[in-house]
Each structure stands twice: as structure tokens, then as C-alpha cells.
């Protein structure tokens, strides 16, 4: 957009084109003159080439005037062309206008091409085939020659100068055009570019927002998935506990069986205990029997004691002796059956 405070008069681009035209014309004029200041053709190649073409044209015209061209053999035409184009170059070398020896190289190349093409038995009259043959015969040499030209410091220097002057001029024109249209209150290319820059910036911000939202979505889904993961873990843990519980249940089942067994055994206990009670009763009865036997023994001792004074005066036995006597009866004395059984039980 036009900038405020710019009070300069609009510059007419046509006025700027004028010096450009003059500069360009001068450059071409220098080129055709072989001037050393020319950027485009520092070695006068164009001039030489143009002269060679003109020379060839003249020679062909002479042939036509002589009426011999119509029946000319293609080989003859080629010879004529080579001779016409190479003579001028040879002359150029003679004048010392070949500072880099490039023309010599070119001439060598032409000679090589001539030899190759003329070696062919049939020179095609078809211009396209001929052109292909010509290219195949000369392209490599051409590439070498041109490569040699371009690859020199001198060529680079000339190109550099040309580029510098061209870019400088281009900048000047661009600036002048900008000013001219600005002063005419017309939007220029750079004005539109500025607007486009703003659009790009806005787009960039939208992109950033979109990016942030996407990140948020991704992160949210990650958080949700991680929460779900946690809960799933818990459920999984609980599920993992199930086999243990089930195993325990199996253990309980086993225990139940064992309990059943225990119960059965416990059930069997009363009977056993009852049996034990019976034994107890027997014991009591035995006690009673023993008691009765004791009483009986005492009675027997008393009876014995009553009878013994009649035979001898018995010494009064101590209770131990009495008992020993009871346990060890004299020879030939038989104990009563009841007494014997009591003695066994005591043992």
C-alpha cells in the first residue's frame, strides 16, 4: 500500500527502460565489434560464427548461380559447408583473436566431425537423420570445448560481472516500479505479497491451534486409556485372585471331607467311651471282688490263726510276713483259686 509521507514524483518506468535499452544495445554492439568490455561474448565467438554462416551462405548462393547445387551430392554439400565454416575460424586464429586456444580446439573438433561424417558411405538427404548423425559425431567434442570455456576463471569472471550488473539493474527497476505504482495509489506486487504473508501467518497460527488440539486429543486419549488401564489392572488383579479363592474352596471341600471323617470318628468315640465305661465298671467290680477277697483272706487268716495254736505256739506274724506268707505258701499247700487270681492281677 502507498506509504504516507512519500512526496516524490512518480517515476515513469519507460524512462528507466531507455537506459536499459541503451546499455543492452551497447553490450551487443561491443560483442559484434569484438570489444573486450563486452560481457556476453568476450572472445567474439558470435561475431566469428555469424561471419562463417554468412560466408557459407554466399558460397552456396554461388553454387546455385552456377546451377550445380541441384545435382550436388550430399557429400559435396557437406564438404562445402565444412570448408566455408572453418576458413573463417582459421583466419581468426591467424589474427591472434584466440586467447584461450578455444578456436583451435573447435577446429580440431570440426575436422574430427568431418572425417566421421564423410567416412559414411551414404550421407542421408533426410535433414533429421543428418542432424542426428551430426550431433552424434560432434556432441562429445562440443561438450569438451564448451566445458573448457565455462570452466575457466575468465568466463566465470565475465559471468559474475554480467550477473552483478543484471541483478543491480533488476533491483533498480523493481524499486522504480514499486514507487511508480505506489504513487499512483495502486497496489503493487509487494503489497499483495504482504497481505499473503499475513494470510500465511494466520494459517500458521491455525495450524498451531490445530496441532495443540490434536496433542490435547492424543494426550486425553492417553490419559483415558491409562486410567482405563489402571482399572483394568485392578479388575485383572481381582480376577487373578479367583483361582486362589477357588483353590481355597477346594481345600475347604477337602477339609469338609476330613471333618466328615473326624465327625465319624467322633461319632465312634461314644461307643469307645462306652466301652471304656464298661471297663471301668469291670474295674469297680474287680475292686469289689478284690475287697471281698481281702475280706475273705482276712477271714481265712483268722481261721488259720485259730487252728495254729493247737499245733504250735505261733509267733505273731508281722503284716508283711503275713502277706509274704500269703504270697509264698508252704510246700504242698495249695492256695485257693480265688486267692491265686487276685495275686496275678496285683502283679
Amino acid at each position: 500500500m502507498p506509504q504516507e509521507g512519500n512526496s516524490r514524483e512518480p517515476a515513469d518506468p519507460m524512462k528507466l527502460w531507455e537506459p536499459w535499452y541503451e546499455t543492452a544495445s551497447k553490450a551487443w554492439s561491443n560483442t559484434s565489434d569484438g570489444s573486450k568490455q563486452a560481457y556476453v561474448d568476450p572472445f567474439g565467438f558470435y561475431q566469428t560464427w555469424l561471419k562463417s554462416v554468412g560466408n557459407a551462405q554466399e558460397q552456396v548462393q554461388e553454387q546455385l548461380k552456377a546451377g550445380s547445387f541441384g545435382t550436388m551430392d550430399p557429400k559435396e554439400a557437406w564438404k562445402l559447408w565444412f570448408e566455408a565454416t572453418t576458413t573463417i575460424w582459421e583466419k581468426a586464429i591467424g589474427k591472434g583473436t584466440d586467447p584461450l586456444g578455444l578456436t583451435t580446439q573447435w577446429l580440431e573438433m570440426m575436422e574430427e566431425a568431418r572425417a566421421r561424417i564423410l567416412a559414411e558411405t551414404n550421407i542421408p538427404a533426410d535433414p533429421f537423420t543428418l542432424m542426428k548423425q551430426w550431433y552424434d559425431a560432434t556432441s562429445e567434442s562440443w561438450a569438451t570445448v564448451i566445458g573448457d570455456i565455462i570452466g575457466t576463471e575468465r568466463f566465470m569472471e565475465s559471468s559474475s560481472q554480467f550477473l552483478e550488473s543484471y541483478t543491480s539493474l533488476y533491483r533498480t527497476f523493481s524499486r522504480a516500479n514499486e514507487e511508480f505504482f505506489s504513487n499512483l495509489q495502486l497496489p503493487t506486487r509487494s503489497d499483495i505479497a504482504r497481505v499473503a504473508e499475513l494470510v500465511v501467518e494466520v494459517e500458521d497460527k491455525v495450524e498451531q491451534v490445530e496441532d495443540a488440539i490434536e496433542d490435547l486429543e492424543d494426550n486425553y486419549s492417553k490419559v483415558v486409556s491409562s486410567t482405563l488401564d489402571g482399572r483394568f489392572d485392578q479388575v485383572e488383579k481381582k480376577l487373578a485372585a479367583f483361582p486362589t479363592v477357588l483353590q481355597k474352596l477346594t481345600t475347604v471341600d477337602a477339609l469338609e471331607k476330613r471333618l466328615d471323617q473326624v465327625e465319624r470318628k467322633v461319632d465312634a468315640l461314644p461307643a469307645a467311651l462306652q466301652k471304656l465305661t464298661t471297663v471301668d465298671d469291670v474295674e469297680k467290680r474287680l475292686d469289689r471282688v478284690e475287697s471281698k477277697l481281702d475280706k475273705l483272706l482276712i477271714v481265712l487268716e483268722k481261721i488259720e490263726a485259730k487252728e495254729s495254736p493247737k499245733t504250735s505256739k505261733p509267733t505273731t506274724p508281722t503284716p508283711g510276713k503275713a502277706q509274704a506268707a500269703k504270697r509264698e505258701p508252704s510246700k504242698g499247700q495249695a492256695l485257693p483259686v480265688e486267692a491265686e487270681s487276685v495275686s496275678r492281677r496285683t502283679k
Partner: protein
Amino acid sequence: MNQNKTTQSDFDSAFKKYRTGMQIILEGAKADTGQTPKEVIWTKNKAKLYHYEPMVEKRFPIPILMIYALINRPYVLDLMPGNSFVEYLVKHGFDVFMLDWGTPGDEDKKLSFEDYVLDYIPRAVKKVLKAARAEEISLLGYCMGGTMTAMYAALFPDKLLRNLILLTAPVDFTPDDMGLFGLMTSPKYFNPDHVVEAFGNIPADFIDTGNRMLKPVTNYVGTYVTMWDRLMQGKSMDTWLAMNKWVNDGVPFAGEAFRQWIREFYQQNKLVKGEITLRGRKVDLSNISCPILSIAGSKDHICTLPQAEAIKRVVSSKEVDFHVVDAGHVGLMTGSDARKDVWPTILHWLEPRSSKE
């Protein structure tokens, strides 16, 4: 054409061919390029991220993102059916993506390598991973795109980068190894500031002229000799037209990026020395540790062999496969030799490295 007897039909045929040839020269080559079905899944400014539609069942979970140079159209990798590297990979079950930088306008003259390497590529990688539902990626960089991909790999040496494929990617810019380019970009003869200040963005023709001047006879004459030859012999013109269209379909170079490219890469050779810094972040190529496949052409005059081969000595990857093929800068990936040699080489290298570990 019969040399002895020229018939009316011969004349008509020759005239028709001549008219076709002149039409191509005057109007430019026309061809349907980039026909592999694709979808734009993301855009940023002029850049677009393409996702190629699968043609067979996906065999490899690791997606491939192709990154081309800033100054040419990426459809050279998807030239035409039957001569498309993209189609080749898709048909072999790869999930293929491509980053198309688009055409910078006047408003983009300040775009720099900082923007491309730190903003565009990481975002594109993120989008690819999301679209492919993958956690790892293979990156394929061609020419300057390869250099930029290597820079990205050095700055983001995270685990998501599984494989790195570099095609004719210059890494070392030692002037003696660059042939004529070394002289053309020498600070003695070329000041990028002058060009940037004059043009803003560097016109495609300017860049193209510089490249063509490396082989002027082949590029300015040989191409059209081939055209006439093919026309006159009645050979198929499809590939020639597609290639010629691509060659003449250059993209302007964003001014600031051009200044950096010439000054910091070509004139100061900072990349291989580890002296490039992007927004304060040092680009150290030794940070790259993933497997690398680098392919260079022995006839390449834009990225010479030593320039590409340098990757072997600057990265810390245990696996660096460097292949040299008998081809030029573009012929490396197009044409019948590419189909027979380079494409299968890439495919067989990628296949075992594109499965989940």
C-alpha cells in the same frame, strides 16, 4: 524416408512429425504425470502431504515418507504408470507418503531451512505416523531433499526413525569434489545476496540454467536431438514428454533458503563440519544412528560421488549401505535401468527393515 523415391504419404508423415516436434518445442511437453491415486492428508502453507492409496494389501507396517528437493517437482518419483517408483512401492505393499513443497510465492521469500527442517518435516512425520497408525517411519530423501532429511535425522534422533534412504544426496560440499558447481558457486564469483535482493525468490529458470550449464550440449541440444530422433523413428514419446515436462517444470527457490544453501552449504561447507545451526540447534550428523541406504550415480554432475559418499564417515550408524549406479542425477530413478536395478535395490533393502520388531 526412401532416399530415392519420396511418396505423398512419406511427405505427410514427415510433415506431421515435424509439426509435432515444433509444437513440443514451442508449447512445451505435455504429459499426464503423477497418476498414482493419492489423497492430500495435510497442508501447510504451499506444502502438501500425499498419501498414496494402497493397491494391494499392506505388507509392511512401517510407512515411507518421501521428501524431494525444494527446486523441482516431486512427481519425478511418480512419473507415469509403469514408470513410477511410488507405484512400484505401493504395489509391493508399502504405505507410501510424499511431501510436496509446492511453489513458494513472493510471501515465502523468508522461508529458510529452519522452517523446512524444524517445522515442516517433523509435522509431516507426525501426520504420517498418525495416518499409518505406526510408531516408526522410513524416510527417503532425494537430492536436496536427502540433505534435508539427513539434517532432520540428526536433529531428531529419536526412536521413531527406523530407516533412512538417501538418493543422490549431497552432504560434503568440498569445492574440489563438486566439479563445475564448485567454481560456479565460488564466493569469488557468486554472491547469493545480490540475487536474493534482486529477485526475492530465485526464479526456477535461473536455477535451471545453472544446472543445465553443467552439461550444456546434452541439456540444450542433446535432449531435442533425442526428441527428433524418436519422433522420426516413430518411437514412443511418453517417457520423453514426461521427463521433458518435469525438467522444464522447476520451482522457484525461496530466497532465504537459497542464500543459506549457497553460502552455508556450498561456500562454507558447514554441514559436514557440524557447524550448521538451526534456531540455535546444532546439526550434528553423527547423531544419526539408524540404518542408512545411500545411492549415488557415477554420471551425476549435480551431486557428485564424493559429495554423497561422505555420509558413510559422518554418521554413527552401524549399517550404512552405499551403492553406486551407472546413471545421472535424474536417470537414477527413472527409466528402464532404474526399474531393473535401483528400485529393486531399495525394495530389497527396505523389506526386511520394515516389519515390527
